[in-house]
C-alpha cells in the first residue's frame, strides 16, 4: 500500500455483490436470502422499521459478520488485494461510534496509522479531516468527553481521513438535534461529491428524502423493495413500503418471520 496516495486513483473494489446472503443467530434467521448489487455512484439508503435487519445487513456488507449462507463478493479489480474482512477501501460509521481513549486528533491519526500511513504524512490528513467536520477547534480534547454529535462527526472525520471508496453509515444522526443532523448530512454529501459510495441506514423519512438516490426497504430481514428514491416515496410498489412511507408502524401487525 502506498501511504499518502489518493486512494481514488487505485483500482476500484466496487461493485459489491450479495449472493443469496442469509444470517442466523440464536437459532433465528435474521437476514433472509438477500441478493443484490451495489454499484458505484448513487447514494443508497436502507430503510426499514426497528429490528428489520438494517444494521446486520451493513455489518455483513462491511465484512464484520460472516453470512450463514450465501456470499459477499467485491467484484471490482481492486478487491483482489484483500479477501474477506474489512479493508482500507471501505469504512463504517457505527450507530454508536467507539472512541479510543485519546484525543480527537489521535483518534483520526490512529485510523491512518493502522492503515499504514506514515507518521509524517498523518498530521496534514488529520488536520484536514477535522477541519472537514468542523472539529479542528476540539482536536486536542479527549475524544470520549465530546458530545454525542461531536463524536459522530469525529467518527466521520476518521472515515474521511481514510478516503474510502465505500462508506457504510448506520443511523449516523440517531440522537442528534436537527442542527447537528444537518451538519452530518452535509458531511455525508461531501463524501458523495468526493466520489465515495454511500450506503446508509436511517429510519428518518425526511432524511431519506433529502439524501437518497435509491432506496432499499427491509422488513423482517427480507429485502422487500428496491427502487429509485423518487418512485419509492411517491409510489411504493409494496404494501409494506407503502405503510412505512405513510408513517404507519409496521411491526405490531406484521407476521413474525417464522410464519411468513
Amino acid at each position: 500500500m502506498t501511504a499518502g496516495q489518493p486512494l481514488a486513483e487505485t483500482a476500484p473494489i466496487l461493485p459489491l455483490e450479495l449472493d443469496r446472503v442469509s444470517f442466523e443467530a440464536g437459532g433465528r434467521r435474521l437476514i433472509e436470502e438477500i441478493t443484490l448489487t451495489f454499484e458505484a455512484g448513487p447514494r443508497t439508503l436502507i430503510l426499514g422499521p426497528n429490528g428489520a435487519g438494517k444494521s446486520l445487513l451493513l455489518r455483513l456488507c462491511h465484512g464484520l459478520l460472516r453470512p450463514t449462507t450465501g456470499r459477499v463478493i467485491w467484484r471490482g479489480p481492486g478487491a483482489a488485494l484483500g479477501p474477506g474482512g474489512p479493508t482500507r477501501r471501505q469504512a463504517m460509521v457505527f450507530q454508536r461510534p467507539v472512541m479510543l481513549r485519546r484525543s480527537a486528533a489521535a483518534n483520526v491519526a490512529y485510523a491512518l496509522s493502522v492503515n499504514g500511513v506514515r507518521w509524517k504524512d498523518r498530521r496534514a490528513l488529520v488536520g484536514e479531516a477535522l477541519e472537514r467536520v468542523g472539529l479542528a477547534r476540539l482536536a486536542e480534547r479527549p475524544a470520549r468527553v465530546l458530545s454525542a454529535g461531536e463524536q459522530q462527526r469525529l467518527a466521520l472525520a476518521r472515515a474521511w481521513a481514510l478516503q474510502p471508496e465505500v462508506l457504510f453509515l448506520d443511523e449516523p444522526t440517531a440522537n442528534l438535534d436537527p442542527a447537528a443532523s444537518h451538519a452530518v448530512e452535509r458531511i455525508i454529501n461531501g463524501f458523495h461529491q468526493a466520489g465515495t459510495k454511500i450506503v446508509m441506514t436511517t429510519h428518518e423519512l425526511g432524511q431519506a428524502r433529502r439524501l437518497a438516490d435509491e432506496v432499499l426497504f427491509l422488513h423482517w430481514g427480507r429485502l422487500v423493495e428496491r427502487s429509485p428514491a423518487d418512485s419509492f416515496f411517491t409510489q411504493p410498489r409494496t404494501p409494506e413500503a407503502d405503510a412505512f412511507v405513510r408513517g404507519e408502524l409496521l411491526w405490531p401487525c406484521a407476521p413474525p418471520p417464522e410464519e411468513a
Partner: protein
Amino acid sequence: MDEIYAAAAAAFGLILDLDPDLGEIVVLSLRVSLTAVALATAIGLPLGAAIALFRFPGRRTMAVVLNALMGLPPVVVGLIVYLMLSRAGPFGVFGLLYTPGAMIVAQCLLIAPIIAALTRQVVEDLWAEYEEQLRSLGAGPGRAMATLLRDGRFSLVTVVLAGFGRASAEVGAVMIVGGNIDHLTRVMTTAIALETSKGNLALALGLGFILMTLALGVNAAAFVIKDVAQRRQG
C-alpha cells in the same frame, strides 16, 4: 499499655534514625517484591491479554484455572517452590533455596496468576467495546492487542499494584523458601513475625508501620490513577 507506648516511641526512633538493620530489611523486601512483580507482569500481562483476545483450544479452561490460582494459599506456594528448589528437587542444582532468588520465584508464582486473571478481565471488557470498531478500521490481532493494553493502561497499572500489594504483604511463602535468615533473606513480614515472637516490639512495630504505609500508599495510588484517568479520558 506503657510497654506499647514505649515500643511505639522506640519504633519511630528506629525509623527516624534510619536504623541500618531496619533499613536493610526494608530494602531487601522492596527488592524482592519489585523484582517479583516485574517478572509476574512480564508473564501475566501478555498471558491475560492473549486469553482475552485469541480463540485457541483450552482457552476457557485456562481462564478458569487462572481464576482458581488467584486464591493459592501462600504457604502452599512456598511449599511447592521449596520442593522444586531443594537439593533433591528438579531445580536443586541452582542452589537458590534460602536466597532472595527463591523468595522472588515464590512471590512471582503467587502473583502471576493474579495479574494474568485481572488483565484478562480488563482486556476482555475493553475488547467487547472495541472489537467491531478496531476490525472495521483494519487493525489485525497484534495491533488490536497493543491498542487494548494502551487504552487499558490505567486499569492495568492498578492490576500491577494489586500484585505488588499481595507480594509485599505475604509471609508464608517467603518464610518457607527464604528461611528468614538475618542479613540475607529477612524481609519485613518475616521479621515482624519473628521479632514479635521474641518480644522485640519496637522493631516489629517500626516495620509494621512501614509496611502499612506502603500498602496504604499503593492502594491510594491505584485509586488516584484510575480516578484521574477516568476524569481526563472519560
